[in-house]
């Protein structure tokens, strides 16, 4: 098939838009598999030390604010819902709706980051950030410091992903406003949605592992 006969948005390497759509979706899934293993290293570290220092991790975990963590869980879950609606809106060619839903998703992402920032600030004030200023008055300060190191590494890496996601959502919102996703050209919204849901799911694992282990 000649490239000239195709709609302009199909890459020259593809035969048709269907092939392009499938390729993009498969690519995103493979990327998410990569991401799972990227977080996997940290989850492995967490698991090993959770077994080695079980009691200490339980005690230390109580220092985290379950209320703020729980609120953040809810915020992310709602943002995922908005994202799912956004994909639907893209498929139904609802330009305004799509734009607002994407902005809503990004805003909830910002809310999540703000709450996270409040938490981090509290930890900083309470000298819970590992390193020279770390202070722990219970037994075994070293293991407590290890717990907080893992907590910051995991939530920090997750926060980086949320930030990237917010950026993507804002760019997509702009493009949606300009009508780039009309006429069945919703593929980009769909694969961005996959990414956002992934970020959400990671948090769904982090929340119980870090915040809830100390609570019966």
């Amino acid at each position, binding site marked *: *098939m000649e490239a000239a006969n195709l709609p302009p948005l199909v*890459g*020259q*390497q*593809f*035969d048709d838009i269907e*092939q392009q759509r*499938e*390729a993009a979706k*498969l*690519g995103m899934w*493979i*990327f998410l*598999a*990569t*991401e799972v*293993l*990227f*977080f*996997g*290293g*940290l989850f*492995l*570290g967490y698991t*090993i*030390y959770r077994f*080695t*220092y079980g009691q200490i991790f339980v005690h230390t975990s109580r220092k985290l604010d379950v209320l703020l963590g729980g609120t953040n869980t809810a915020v992310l879950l709602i943002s995922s819902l908005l994202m799912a609606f956004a994909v639907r809106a893209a498929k139904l060619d609802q330009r305004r709706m799509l734009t607002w839903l994407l902005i809503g998703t990004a805003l909830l992402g910002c809310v999540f980051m703000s709450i996270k920032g409040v938490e981090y600030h509290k930890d900083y004030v309470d000298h819970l950030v*590992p*390193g*020279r200023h*770390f202070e722990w008055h219970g037994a*075994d300060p*070293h*293991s407590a*410091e*290890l717990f907080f*190191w*893992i907590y910051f*590494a995991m939530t920090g*890496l997750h926060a980086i992903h949320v930030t990237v996601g917010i950026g993507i959502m804002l760019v997509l919102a702009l493009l949606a406003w300009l009508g780039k996703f009309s006429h069945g050209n919703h593929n980009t919204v769909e694969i961005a949605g996959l990414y956002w849901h992934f970020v959400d799911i990671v948090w769904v694992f982090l929340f119980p592992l870090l915040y809830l282990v100390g609570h019966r």
Partner: protein
Amino acid sequence: MNGTISDSESSMKSATELVVERPGEFARLNYLSVHHGVRSWLLTKDHKRIGLLYLFTILIFFLIASVAAALMRIELVTPQPKLVTSETYNKLFTIHGVLMVWFFLIPSIPTVLGNFILPMMIGARDVAFPKLNLLSWYIFVAGGALALWSLLHGGVDTGWTFYTPYSTTYANTHVISMAAGVFVAGFSTIITGMNFMVTTHKMRAPGLTWFRLPLFVWSLYATSLIMVLATPVLAITLALISVERFWGVGIFDPKLGGDPVLFQHLFWFYSHPAVYIMILPGMGVISELITCFSRKPIYGYAWVGSASMAIAVLGFLVWGHHMFVSSQSVYAGMVFSILSFLVAVPSGIKVFNWTATLRKGSIHFATPMLYALGFIGLFTIGGLTGLFLAALAVDVHVHDTYFVIAHFHYIMVGGMVMAFMGGLHYWWPKISGRLYPELAGKLAAMITFIGFNLTFFPQFILGYLGQPRRYHVYPPEFQIYHVLSTAGASILGVGYLMPLIYFIWAWKHGRVAGPNPWRATGLEWQTPSPPPEHNFEQTPVVRGPPYSYSAEKDVDLDVASI
């Protein structure tokens, strides 16, 4: 043209001589000639040009890493230091390891030959994501730049393995920037792997079913699987040691009750599969070469293809065999030992099938075939010595000695580099449209083979004698083997320099090759050399299995022509 397999059969009948004698046609409108200027290269989305960008880049890293190796070999001629200080020596083996592993071996066949040939082999116009493909090269260059920056600012002395707590707490060198370089380059690997997987799944020409794929494609697919699933673990591990080093505390720090051996688990969970990134593509190339130059279909196609996948999967389960003496539990050691023995089986299957393919063939000893036969020889020795390392009791003795060094150089250099050279010679006419000088090629292949064995075989003996790796000074009774090894390395150097020179010469002055100088059957040969920008005038249709060679006809024609 309608490039089907059955057509290539007919073109084969008319050919009476392999290569050289008949000048072919040089395709004037090709991927090199359509665009000009630096911009056209730096902004290209053509997988063929990106392949050449990678070739050029990894050659630079190969040269730097080779110079490091040469300096080490010269230093090791005498037991006491003569040339460099211990700091410098330690930086030399680190830079050699880091650059060779991450900036030469891992990208070598996938990003150069894979990028160039894979889309053509499956009848596609390009890879699935050409922009990402170019991006991967830029990321690779950025990673390489960081690595070179650390090198220029004093280097790193942790060894390519970055073992904690040395790397996190005790080393006084540029660990963070070097780790960042490898981290960044890792994303280029991930993108390449993802691109190849999607391309193989979604871009195959009509009629090209999975079991009609050339074995090179199978091996690249298996490689991509490892790239995508293993590299992120390396990335997070390097990120963790960088943060730990920067922050002063971390999860590998024994002072916090952290376990430095956890680093080794994470590192080898990546790095052992990465060993297969460094050999599987080579195996794929060898399957192509053996069939073409013995004019026979591969023996046991399904077994060779499945062996690639088996290696990729089993390769994820054997990382602990790097840690038999690291204080890992005895029972974990046993599980990893048995799995390591089992991963040798699919490699064995491949070697047996290549050997069986030769039977009743019509064997042409062209340069790529010499490299392929050399590969089988060296890979067999490398693989068999792997059994020594999988056997727990023997590994305790030879672990971290020159025995290990010799073993993995037999696989990485004797295997992967031989395959890379063989593949580069084989596809050179397609890449450049011209032939390299055959006699010089054969000579270089043989020099490489001899030099390689002289360099690395003595190291097996050294290792069993107990010479530990990464030793700047060593007891005088080991000297004779070090001298032999250095002598071999200088021969090996000649073997590598020759192709560099004649390839550059042949780029302009080589004899014109024509579309299919080897009368090979792959789709990549059914289009002019050098190929047009989008590879094929028309999407080819595949109607049969790969490797429809006939040794019998080949001989008949040859005899008739005398």
